[in-house]
């Protein structure tokens, strides 16, 4: 096995092995657990960096293991997978630091961090999957390893949320499986291929392909929280803040959206999908989800619930960018995969800080919190403004390309969806900022913890500040080499090459 074949395995192992070891660590071995967590995350980041460099310079990273006759387990690095793997690796490291601070002193940490590492392993597997069957395996593994994280607190509410999550995602997984098997019977292959592998099929198969498309999108749409399959996501908010951050920014929701991108581009091929007439309905579903999610967010007093509905809305930007069909909109959709992750993780970290430090869970409890926790609220402000699409933050870049792409593709109605969504985003984020910065603080906070002269623990404060800076940097330096925008352009060039 040469280096190029081994690298994808090493990347998987960098989180898998620490995760397995951590399971067997006694609770009191804090230093060992922390070292393993951080070393694994840092090693993964380095390896992914090497791989990104290699992919950019045309190196081929692939490992193939026969599973069944005609079906291989394939891990392969391509520019699209690198976008997702890069995001997961960076945010995993940050989330690990945050989780260490967040769970300090709480029970069952070894179990938590074990599943936490497995969750990232499954996510990286989803990203590096070279065919639909490998994708499906890691996708289902992700479902299973995320469940213990959602029910981690062990309360009745947590268990109920976990149950709902399982019902939704397993049902979605079944649809995905049916679609995959059916597709295999038609084509005899499931390999992800640039511009898809279905356009050579006979026209008589097209109705079947449309049904398969619906099955695959419905299956993936559960995790991507497409309406009406999003019901699990707001309930899953009962999970600890690092898990929420992981669900919304790094792993589960992103895996669903990434899967849809894979199906549209590397299974069907965007042009073929458009010719089948399936992209417009997909765009409409995405548009409805964007508006509905934002409207629901508008009325939530629970901060994490508001953020959850915001995710429902924002994730569909990615799908909208894909479904609009056109190189510029694709850039917008792909870059939002990264930008949404960075912005949303910032917001969840901040929500976690408010809950852990002051016991604040509701928007109505946030009056004047900017004076008490200025760094946290500055990070939150940057994340919120990014979500609204204020320049020069990350969200502005995404909306710019989505809007421009819509005009380029002759789908002007998308502009109104973007404008409406921006208005609604302002409607549910700006009142939070107003309350936090301009209203008088309460005399006492719901459950205040003292951290000396600092507003909160370092491990809780540093991650949102870092991700807020990232939100600013990926927007401000969008045209710099190796920025997410440049990488999304690189992917699009390959996808739309003549």
């Amino acid at each position, binding site marked *: 096995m040469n280096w190029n074949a081994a690298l994808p395995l090493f990347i998987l192992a960098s989180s898998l092995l620490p995760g397995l070891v951590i399971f067997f660590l006694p609770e009191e071995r804090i230093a060992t657990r922390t070292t393993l967590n951080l070393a694994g995350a840092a090693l993964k980041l380095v390896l992914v960096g090497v791989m990104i460099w290699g992919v950019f310079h045309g190196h081929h990273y692939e490992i193939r293991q026969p599973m069944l006759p005609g079906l291989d387990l394939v891990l392969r690095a391509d520019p699209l997978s690198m976008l997702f793997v890069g995001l997961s690796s960076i945010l995993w490291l940050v989330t690990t630091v945050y989780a260490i601070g967040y769970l300090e002193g709480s029970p069952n940490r070894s179990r938590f961090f074990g599943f936490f590492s497995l969750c990232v392993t499954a996510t990286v597997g989803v990203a590096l999957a070279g065919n639909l069957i490998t994708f499906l395996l890691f996708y289902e593994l992700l479902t299973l390893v995320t469940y213990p994280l959602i029910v981690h607190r062990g309360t009745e509410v947590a268990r109920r949320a976990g149950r*709902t999550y399982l*019902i*939704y995602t397993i*049902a*979605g997984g*079944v*649809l995905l499986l*049916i*679609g995959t098997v*059916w597709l295999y019977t038609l084509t005899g292959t499931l390999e992800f291929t640039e511009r898809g592998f279905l356009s050579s099929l006979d026209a008589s198969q097209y*109705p*079947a392909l449309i*049904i*398969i498309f*619906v*099955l695959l999108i*419905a299956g993936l749409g*559960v995790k991507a929280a497409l309406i*009406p*399959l*999003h*019901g699990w996501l*707001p*309930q899953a908010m009962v999970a600890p803040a690092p898990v929420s951050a992981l669900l919304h920014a790094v792993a589960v929701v992103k895996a669903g959206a990434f899967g849809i991108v894979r199906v549209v581009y590397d299974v069907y091929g965007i042009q073929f999908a458009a010719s089948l007439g399936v992209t417009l309905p997909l765009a409409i579903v995405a548009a409805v989800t964007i508006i509905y999610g934002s*409207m*629901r967010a508008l*009325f939530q007093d629970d901060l994490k619930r508001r953020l959850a509905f915001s995710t429902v809305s924002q994730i569909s930007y990615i799908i909208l960018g894909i479904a609009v069909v056109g190189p510029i909109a694709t850039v917008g959709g792909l870059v939002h995969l990264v930008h949404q992750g960075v912005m949303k993780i910032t917001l969840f970290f901040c929500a976690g800080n408010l809950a852990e430090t002051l016991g604040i869970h509701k928007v109505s409890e946030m009056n004047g919190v900017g004076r008490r926790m200025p760094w946290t609220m500055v990070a939150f402000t940057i994340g919120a*403004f990014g979500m609204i*699409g*204020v*320049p*020069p933050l990350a969200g*502005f*870049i995404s*909306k*710019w390309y989505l*809007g*421009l792409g819509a*005009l*380029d593709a002759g789908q002007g109605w998308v*502009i109104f969806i973007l*404008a409406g969504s*921006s*208005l609604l985003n*302002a409607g549910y984020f*700006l009142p939070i900022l*107003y309350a936090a*910065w*301009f209203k008088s603080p309460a005399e006492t906070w719901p459950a205040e913890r003292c951290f000396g002269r600092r507003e909160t623990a370092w491990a809780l404060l540093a991650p949102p500040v870092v991700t807020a800076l990232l939100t600013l940097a990926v*927007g*401000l*330096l*969008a*045209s*710099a080499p190796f920025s997410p925008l440049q990488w999304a352009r690189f992917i699009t060039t390959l996808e739309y090459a003549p």
Partner: protein
Amino acid sequence: MNTTLSAILLLAVPGCPLLLAFPAFRSRLPCHFSCYIALLPALILLAVPTVFSVDLPWLLFGTGLGINGASRWLLGMSVVLWASAATFLYAPVSQPADNRFITFFLLTLAANLGVILATDLVGFFAFSTLMGYSFYGLLVNGGNKAARRAGCVYLCFLILADLLLFEALLIAAAMTEDLSFEAVRQIMGQSASPGLYLSMVLVGFALKVGAWPLHFWLLPAFRSARPAVALLLGGGPVAMGLLGAMRWLPLGEITSPELGLIIQGLGVVAMLYAVVVGLMRVQQKTLPACVAIFATGLFVTALGAGLADPVVWSRYGNLAYFFIVSLGLGLAVLIIGIRWLELRKPSSSPAKQGDDLTLWFERGFGRVVHWGGQIGFDTLPRLRAAWLADVGCLRQIRAWQRILDRSEHFLQRWIVAITLLLLFGMVVAFVGAVSLI
């Protein structure tokens, strides 16, 4: 001038106040010093007598900063205004400025200077958005209830304005990759249907400057803002909005007599409105707002003339820069004068108390209702009451909320139903598959 040096100098003009806006960077400086230090690069730039610009391809989608004769005047005005405001901020009679206020002050300053130096639409838009939001902070921070309400109206208008300008920006970007002012002006001049772009830019900047009939935030803002902030209103949001309209519109490149006539008409009405309101209002603090509405009306009339006849704009367009400079400085002098008069007679003329934020049409409607009641036509009050009740209900959006809550409740409670729906999908798929095979 050396390219690197000019790039550093141009970047330092908005960069220095931007850095100082972070409390950590100014913690060792006396508070008022930071406001003056932030202006130093702009002063140095004013002292360099050459015209130069710099491209920043790594910033956003590739943007640029530059200075020419016109922007030098605007920069000069801004330096004078901001230095005066900083002095006003620390005058013994002023309300003391807290650390957060200084942050908003420096952020607005950075954005204001950036707007002046921007050489393309994206840079201008980014700086003007930053300016809008940070100016909101200036208006609201430490302000009374009236200031907060004024800020609220301003914020709503700002969001709408930014949305419209963003859409206009997209339209321009769809037509040309080069988004410099000159290139956009030319491409829009050649465009067969620039109507949507023109209307979005006009309405967007009208919202930003508070031009009539979108002036609702301007009156309460002038009245309720602290003196240092009121001083900046004319040279800040109003002047920069006018500058934006000038730079974004294809003036001198396009002939649109109908649109030009409509805009001129609006401008004239705005001036008349300002005169009438100015004569009716007894509060001194309202006077600058009326002057601003009058001046923007005049400017809008000039814009209309420019759109109707490009030759007129080509010949006299440059005067518009001087107009903006005079407006900013003139309003500042007026506000300082009014403040001086107030200080001289602190107790002789207490400010007229009243519901200043009531919209004029609401008051007009009230008068009609009153008159209707007097002549025995009592249906009107009922209509009015019903209308107000509807508006109240709409404001709370309770009905929508209830509908959405129910739908969400259904989705969450009936997870089995959702699962059945998915299973139904599978059955459909199998039936479809069997029939196809």
